[in-house]
């Protein structure tokens, strides 16, 4: 059974829709800058979406209501991806989103009021739970029934895409709007600082002198459909999702294993699912956060699988920052753009290979003959590793 991808939508630090994101990727223009909209007590580089909450509400012509920034970003990307689709009783449709912070951007304001014994604004806490962000998006589009949210830290939306594919494969649903969203928060920026893996300069994925990540924000959504559904919708597929796998590293709550066990399992079994060999992978959109630990572990895992024949790979987090739960979906959209345009996106800010593994990422934008199968990696806290494979039809 083929599972088609027929809709794409994305908002990130490098653009508010697919076209703008693609333009920035081609121009090798990063969106990581000093933050402007999130109030923060020091200067910090992050991948912030260049629109205020008010601007997002206006852009989407939303009525009054309680929206966390996470759901605002989600609504933008979901609407772009959903496009002209309509609901139809004969197409069983669900929505799955992913988030790690949910409405934390508002909750942290509420909690500050509580701690400082100020009058609290209860509307700030009503959007806290992760499920709320998905319900807000579902309501905007009128979707009901299967409405679900996954939260597995930085692999969340890759897992959402995987769950959507499984639900279609098992004939539980015909069509799924799936993605993820996360807003910048003090909680996460200070969190990665507390772990001492926040780079105060531009992040340098896969570079020997990498110091850590820059957090980003954004959202991306995709429409997945089965054959029956596209016959009715008439949607033209971009590609299929051919492989997926989630594996637990079971090594440490945050750190990745030195032998890349979980990552290796995820990539290997995703290829098994897609029934393709390592030499058929045209491009890897790596997790590549820019932390010492992830990039080394991921490099080891890539070498475990691909041995001497490493396909071109890059981390587009050097453009968007690490968008946490949204990363898997944003990078899925980028992977599909790479495939449909036969283009390889560069890994910015790279100058020297990691001494232990000596891998060389793609550093220039490059047009190639055929990007046939793209492997996209997303790894998260709790040793949660997921690989997805997108293939040309």
């Amino acid at each position, binding site marked *: 059974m083929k599972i088609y991808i027929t809709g794409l939508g994305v908002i990130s630090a490098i653009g508010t829709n697919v076209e703008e994101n693609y333009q920035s990727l081609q121009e090798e223009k990063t969106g990581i800058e000093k933050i402007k909209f999130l109030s923060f007590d020091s200067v910090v580089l992050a991948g912030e979406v260049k629109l205020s909450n008010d601007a997002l509400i206006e852009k989407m012509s939303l009525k009054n209501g309680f929206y966390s920034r996470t759901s605002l970003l989600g609504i933008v990307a979901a609407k772009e991806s959903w496009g002209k689709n309509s609901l139809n009783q004969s197409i069983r449709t669900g929505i799955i989103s992913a988030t790690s912070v949910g409405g934390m951007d508002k909750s942290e304001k509420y909690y500050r009021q509580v701690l400082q014994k100020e009058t609290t604004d209860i509307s700030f806490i009503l959007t806290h739970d992760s499920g709320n962000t998905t319900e807000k998006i579902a309501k905007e589009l009128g979707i009901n029934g299967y409405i679900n949210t996954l939260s597995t830290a930085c692999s969340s939306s890759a897992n959402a895409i995987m*769950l959507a594919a499984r639900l279609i494969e*098992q004939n539980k649903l015909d069509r799924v709007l799936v993605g993820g969203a996360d807003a910048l928060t003090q*909680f996460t920026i200070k969190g990665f600082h507390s772990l001492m893996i926040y780079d105060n300069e531009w992040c340098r994925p896969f570079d020997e002198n990498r110091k850590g990540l820059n957090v980003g924000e954004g959202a991306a959504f995709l429409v997945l459909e089965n054959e029956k559904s596209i016959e009715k919708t008439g949607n033209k597929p971009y590609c299929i999702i051919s492989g997926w796998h989630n594996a637990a590293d*079971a090594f440490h709550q945050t750190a990745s294993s030195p032998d890349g066990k979980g990552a290796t399992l995820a990539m290997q079994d995703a290829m098994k699912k897609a029934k393709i060999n390592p030499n058929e992978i045209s491009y890897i959109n790596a997790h590549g956060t820019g932390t010492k630990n992830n990039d080394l572990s991921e490099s080891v895992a890539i070498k475990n699988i691909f041995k001497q024949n490493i396909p071109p790979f890059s981390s587009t987090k050097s453009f968007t920052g690490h968008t946490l739960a949204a990363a898997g979906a944003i990078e899925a959209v980028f992977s599909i753009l790479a495939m449909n345009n036969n283009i390889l996106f560069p890994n910015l800010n790279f100058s020297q290979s990691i001494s232990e593994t000596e891998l060389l990422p793609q550093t220039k934008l490059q047009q190639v003959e055929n990007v046939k199968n793209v492997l996209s990696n997303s790894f998260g806290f709790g040793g949660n590793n997921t690989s997805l494979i997108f293939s040309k039809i």
Partner: protein
Amino acid sequence: MYFIQAASTISHQPTFKNKSFSENISTLNTASELLSPDYKKYITPVMLRRMSKILRMSVACSVDCLEQTDIKSPDAIVVGTGLGCLDDTEKFLNNIISIKEGLIPPTSFIQSTHNTIAGQISLILQNHNYNMTHTQNTLSFEHALQDAFLCLDEGGENVLVGAADEHIEILDDIAEEIGYKNMQLTSGASFFIVSTKNNKNSKICVLNAASYGLFNSFSESLEDFFSASIPLLGKSKIDLGTIDLILFSTLQEKTKNEIADLFKGKSIVDYEKYSGTYFTNSAFALHLAIDILESGKNNFNGMTIDMKRILICNNLNSQNMGLILVEKVEA
């Protein structure tokens, strides 16, 4: 159908390692507390020191489940949680707001992510299989359960699936501010091993589970649920009359009346009066249903009939409906 090989719950009731607990429980009173087991029996002291309530409850229930079977490592670990690791989330929020200078300790940040629960279980079991966390407020458990069934349909034999939520004090203030009255907010964790095989241990199976987000009407959801359950049962029709007990939770008079109308003459019990209120208390209801079915004739809520089939209706959030159908396996 999916067989229950093991079940374990830590709650405000004497549920933990206490078969037939349903015979001896009564509705919660406001002074009730979480009944915690001796966690040292299940978790090493080093790990225990760092663990919040939700992690302790979840890991102890998971280990207990595995000990009830001869399964060392399940084919998947699937967890549902409505609000996740609140205690660590609050601790870290507190730290980032109050520590103005100097280093902020990272432990509570690390442990604040929702998937810390499933991640810790994989660490302790050294399990490299599928590891997932669902968080759809009051439907988180039903979603986890459906995912566990997908894993079984894909060829897995045994899946560890459960749900947990923890109470922290600020929730009481928030509930009051929102206007919820007479609600007893509690903590709880329930874990299960579900399996495709009916080994000697399992007397109970879950026929089907479903979640209806932003649902239209109860009767419509129920109709859809039963028609989806029919092929799983190999029957042409499910007779509402064959359901012996309806366990429900709702704050809506409308839903209460609808249930009473649809299931006239049946036993209908509000499980929330036993579990207290937390986002994933339908997992408590599943364990309660399993225990009632296993006990045969029992005294739960003064009932003395031999129960065969129980329906759990979760309408804790007025917009959402979760349904789980549980049945005693014919000998």
